């Protein structure tokens, strides 16, 4: 087993600045953790998401024909430690199986990074990019901290059973214990965007057996076998 010191650089890379917003955020996590004293030192180091580095998005008349890649339009955020943790969590949520590859194998981590780096203000709560930025960067820091506390390694270095031990505590918001409420909120949102990122790739749509988006001469309605299955034929 690695010594705790081996992970320190990763954690500190994830937590440089301590602005007012960061502290307020950290305090919120602490309160929702129902005064669990053990969690406090880690959250004090969470944050570090800082200001969005670029003021503008793609503008009101973008070229909708071309193919875009994360990082082309605005700079990305993840440090190498955050990227490792995000990759591990993505692939815990959507691992490779017989049908399709894992989330990280089809670029979902890049998409998540693009998402939390998007230069769009919340604008009255309409757009969640900056809320998600705070939630994800704090959440990933929490995840590594929790992993170190329980297993003395960052999340990415844990075997599946140990990853599951943590995820089982936070993967169901309704059943999460009070000290895991905020991490569970993070997990739910992270899962939603991971799945959204994954199932919008060619591999993801194939996994769901989506067979549309092709030109057809006629629209013939549901095949007989479908009608039979729902009791309409």
């Amino acid at each position, binding site marked *: 087993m690695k010594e705790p010191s081996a992970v320190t650089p990763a954690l500190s890379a994830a937590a440089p600045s301590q602005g007012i917003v960061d502290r307020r955020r950290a305090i919120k996590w602490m309160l929702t953790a129902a005064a669990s004293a053990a969690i406090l030192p880690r959250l004090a180091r969470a944050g570090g998401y800082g200001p969005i580095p670029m003021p503008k*998005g*793609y503008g*009101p*008349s*973008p070229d*909708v*024909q071309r193919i*875009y890649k994360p990082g082309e339009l605005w700079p990305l955020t993840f440090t190498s430690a955050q990227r490792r943790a995000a990759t591990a969590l993505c692939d*815990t*949520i*959507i*691992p490779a199986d017989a*049908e399709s590859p894992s989330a990280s194998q089809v670029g979902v981590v890049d*998409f998540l990074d*693009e*998402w939390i780096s998007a230069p*769009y*203000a919340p*604008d009255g709560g*309409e*757009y*969640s*990019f900056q809320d998600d930025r705070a939630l994800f960067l704090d959440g990933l820091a929490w995840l590594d901290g929790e992993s170190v506390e329980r297993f003395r390694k960052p999340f990415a270095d844990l075997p599946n059973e140990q990853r599951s031990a943590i*995820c*089982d505590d936070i*993967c*169901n*918001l*309704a*059943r999460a214990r009070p000290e895991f409420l905020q991490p569970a909120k993070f997990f739910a*949102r992270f*899962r*939603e*965007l991971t*799945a*959204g*990122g994954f*199932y*919008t790739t*060619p591999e993801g*749509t194939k*996994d*769901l*057996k*989506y*067979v*549309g*988006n*092709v*030109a*057809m001469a006629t*629209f*013939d*309605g*549901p*095949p007989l076998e*479908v009608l039979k*299955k*729902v009791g*309409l034929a």
Partner: protein
Amino acid sequence: MPLISAKILKGSYDVIIIGSGAGGGQAAYTLTLEGAKVLMLEAGGNYDPGTETPMFQTPGQAPLRGAPTPDMQNGFYDASRGSGWKIEGEPYTTASDKDGEKFEWWRARMLGGRTNHWAQVSLRNGPYDFKPYSRDGLGFDWPISYEDVAPYYDKVEMLIGVYGTNEGLENTPDSPSGCLLPPPKPKVSDLLFQKAGKSLGIPVVANHRAVLTQRLAFEKLPEKLHPGNAFAQRIVRDSMEQRAACFWATDCSRGCSIRATYQSTTVHLPPAMATGNLDLLPNAMAREITLGKNGKANGVTFIDKTTGGEAHASARAVVVAAGAMESVRLLLNSKSARFPHGLANSSGLLGKYIMDSVGISSTLGQIPLLENLPPHNEDGATWGHVYAPSWLYKEQLAGKLGFARGYHIDFKGGRKMPSLYTAAQMEGLPHCGYGTKYKEDFRRYYGSVVDLAGCGEMIPNEDCYCELDLKVKDKWGIPVLQFHWKWSQHEIRQAAHMQSTFTAIIQAMGGKTYRDLEASNAKPKIHSRTDATNAQTDGAKLIYNGGRGWHEVGGARMGSDPNKSVTNQWGQTHDVPNVVLADAASFVSNADKNPTLTIMALSWRAAEHLAEEMKKGIS
């Protein structure tokens, strides 16, 4: 589309049309084919669906997987440019910030306006809808009846191409033979909705939408549309021939490069341009309609947004179709010694009795019967192929509903192209959390979620109006609108009725609403507004803000009494008859039917009348 610049305007035009959407596009079509020389001013930029439509693109190819942003407020692939609920430098204000009293205003600053991304739902108002006051004593009657408008509904349906069926239902008019195209076959979720409707006494029939399920009969239709006008027939025939039938792929809200849906930019403007009688000037923001010494309008002063400078164009008549609220704003800002409170406002009614459609956030349900279906292509014509027309007329007349008027139900379900929304829907379902089992759950649930939404009639009331904000101006220095809004108990109770009806339908389909799933699993969902509303049964909490129904109409209602209305039955303002309103500003009521088909029918009728008067030298 070939455009002109403000520098090369002709000395004078027969007609200036302000706005290029459904109303302006139809007026330009009718007037230019009748030989009038027309200048069209559009406040937004040029837009060419032939080259700017993302056909077949997938969310994975877009920034942020196509999610809405302040730049593209309805998502990256929606056919909107420079458009949205908020437009930089062009604010509007609301008297109240409270939900339920707020008004939200989607503006499309682009050639073709909102017709580029609309849902193509093309329903005729019925006989009751033109005489609502006579039926229940609420609101106001129109000065025209269904019979007056029916011939124009016929013509618009034949021109733009609307699929649907004739069902002989109450206040849901049939079209004469030859008007409608055959509807697409129902999807499997449509059939389950239909079956559930039957058990509940709710009719579920083919929707009416402006999508070409087959090519238009370009050999026959032009003569029906323009009898005796060989010039018009030739041009319309050419334009119709260039439109392809739907190929059952690509979301209709992206626009359609093969011209299979109605967009002003693919159906109205190409033939109007082909006449050689239309000059089209984008980036021209109308500031004021100017009056001559004879008391008639003589032109329009506008901002050339490309330079920021002001310019003026002259014409014998002005057609205003900037979008109902924007048209009202232009008239309010056209002040003169004769009209100190705004042009054509001697009745004092300009800006009054504005309306929207009643609705609640979509109600989602999960239907076990739709799980794990054999893969098949369900793209079809994008949304559900059926709908439930307003059906509660007997109960309504007997006063049994607790609210006047009614609503129709829009439905969608099926194995749509996966998007971020697919994953958001998954969060509301009882799944196992993560891992390979989560992937299995995702496969099982995919395609099994249905979505019901209502579109209901609002009764005009005195608390809903707009006026000029005395302090705030846009970046061109033009005073902006301030909105006042209040739903009445009729709308609020209708919203609650929608919620209980949608729940009953989902249950009759053998499914559960998200609200019920949440309750049974004690699994609150945190990121969807849909569930927040599902958790509420109080209509006041369910109903969305004014404007969020996308159907803002009224503000310059038509009527026969100049003291009680702004325009006559042909959209001519009583005060200045050569100023004609050709959008939804002149609406007297706002039936549950989506307004676009009626906008086009009334615009055709108004433009035809104007052309006749101009030929006689009256206007």
